[in-house]
């Protein structure tokens, strides 16, 4: 019971406390307007370059933008604690670590889902793409799984936050890598082989592909494998992140380096 309470209440409280993102002055530019302009940017580059359809870029960028709330927010859950001088107190508690850290990921996933969904709906409406109504529930599920996968990667970058102080730079670089590698704007077949191989192990790649196929009329069953692969990638990154946090927490106790990063 206490683990469940820690998971839900602790996660929500830490999210609200560590981010000032309830302020509309940050939320609206970052989560509402910026993804729309990212979609428009790549739609117009695509039109100018004469590659792919508008739908390709709307789906790719709407889902890719889930990386902003998911990766940045998870990364800041560690760095934010350090900034507030509460990281030592958090890690000194006897609370179980799985609900402690995973609880922080739940509101992040929900947030990422809404940001990507909003970008998909509004970006699609602005550009004028049409998606079959039957595909909408499937795409919604894909967005949710993609947000989960990005949050898993975010947990890994959060772990790096125990070693490095400048997590904002790190999160931006991760965002850029996802932009280039995952097929959000460039079909995997147009990328060099080594890049498309790396993409298979990154969040977003399988989710974007699944969403595009659903929008093109594929059945949900036919993309089940892609959705499962996206979930698996997220789970693996989450495990890597959680394990790294535990190892670094242990190291920081031994060497007294928690606040030194």
């Amino acid at each position: 019971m206490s683990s469940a309470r820690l998971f839900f209440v602790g996660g929500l409280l830490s999210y609200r406390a560590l981010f000032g993102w309830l302020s509309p002055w940050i939320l609206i530019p970052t989560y509402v307007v910026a993804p729309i302009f990212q979609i428009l940017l790549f739609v117009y580059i695509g039109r100018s370059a004469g590659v792919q359809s508008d739908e390709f870029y709307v789906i790719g960028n709407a889902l890719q933008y889930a990386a902003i709330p998911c990766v940045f927010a998870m990364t800041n859950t560690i760095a934010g604690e350090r900034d507030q001088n509460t990281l030592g107190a958090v890690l000194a508690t006897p609370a179980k670590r799985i609900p402690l850290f995973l609880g922080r990921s739940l509101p992040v996933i929900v947030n990422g889902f809404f940001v990507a969904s909003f970008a998909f709906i509004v970006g699609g409406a602005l550009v004028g793409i049409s998606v079959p109504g039957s595909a909408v529930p499937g795409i919604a599920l894909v967005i949710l799984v993609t947000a989960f996968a990005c949050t898993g990667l975010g947990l890994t970058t959060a772990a790096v936050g125990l070693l490095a102080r400048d997590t904002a730079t790190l999160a931006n670089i991760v965002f850029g890598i996802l932009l280039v590698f995952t097929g959000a704007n460039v079909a995997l077949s147009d990328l060099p082989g080594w890049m498309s191989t790396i993409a298979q192990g990154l969040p977003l790649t399988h989710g974007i592909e699944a969403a595009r196929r659903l929008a093109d009329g594929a059945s949900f069953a036919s993309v089940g494998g892609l959705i499962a692969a996206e979930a698996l990638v997220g789970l693996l990154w989450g495990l890597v992140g959680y394990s790294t946090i535990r190892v670094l927490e242990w190291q920081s106790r031994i060497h007294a380096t928690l606040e030194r990063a």
Partner: protein
Amino acid sequence: MRRTARLLGMGWLFHVKMLTRSSFNGVLGIVYPLFFATVAFFMYRAGSPDALFYASLGASVMGVWAATSTAAGAALQRERWHGTLELLVAAPAHFALVLLPVTIAMATIGLYSMVSTLVWGRLLFGIHIHVEHWLLFCLSVPATVVAIGMLGFLLAVSFVRYRTAWALGNLLEYPVWLICGFLVPLTFFPDWVRPISWALAPTWGMQAIRQSAQGGTPIPDLLVCVGLGLLYTTIGVVVVDRFLRAARARAVLSLT
């Protein structure tokens, strides 16, 4: 006049040095636009390989704006955090002379990104940059950088009342990339977008750089770019005077 020039010059040098020591402004300022440039290069290579030269020049200037928009939006807030805003405002020099070199220094940092993007395009995508008029090209680049810095100055003073000005500055990154013709010709946009593009100095700076590289007539574009930059500065100085008067009258400079 000499003292003013010295203040501007020393302020610019001081802030360039400071910004180069920041990983966020230094490393990320180079790497982040490279991600977008890489995507654009892949897209143009797949669809219109002939336009790669066009895309390379545009992508290189994107970094100058990227280095300016978010940082300029947050310029005054940063002084607040450092506790130096009151000191700078109280200094005998006009506050605009203190702030203008800050935003021009931010745009100058974008030159790293500009060079690295051109080298990136050459090494990884084989994009050769042929410059027909080197002298005009060498005039167009710094003029564009300074004009973008002046636009940053206007942003900085316009967002002075907002604690979260960085988010507003960040918000303007994509729109300017989009409508200033860095990667997409203006003819692709609806007619109502073009007057907005024309009011932005980076549009003209970008055209001047392209014209000088391709052997066209960059001087008219260059003059409009510089003229708009001076207009931004003039408006910015008026805004600075108004906000300082209001801040002194209401004691709200620190926004606490």
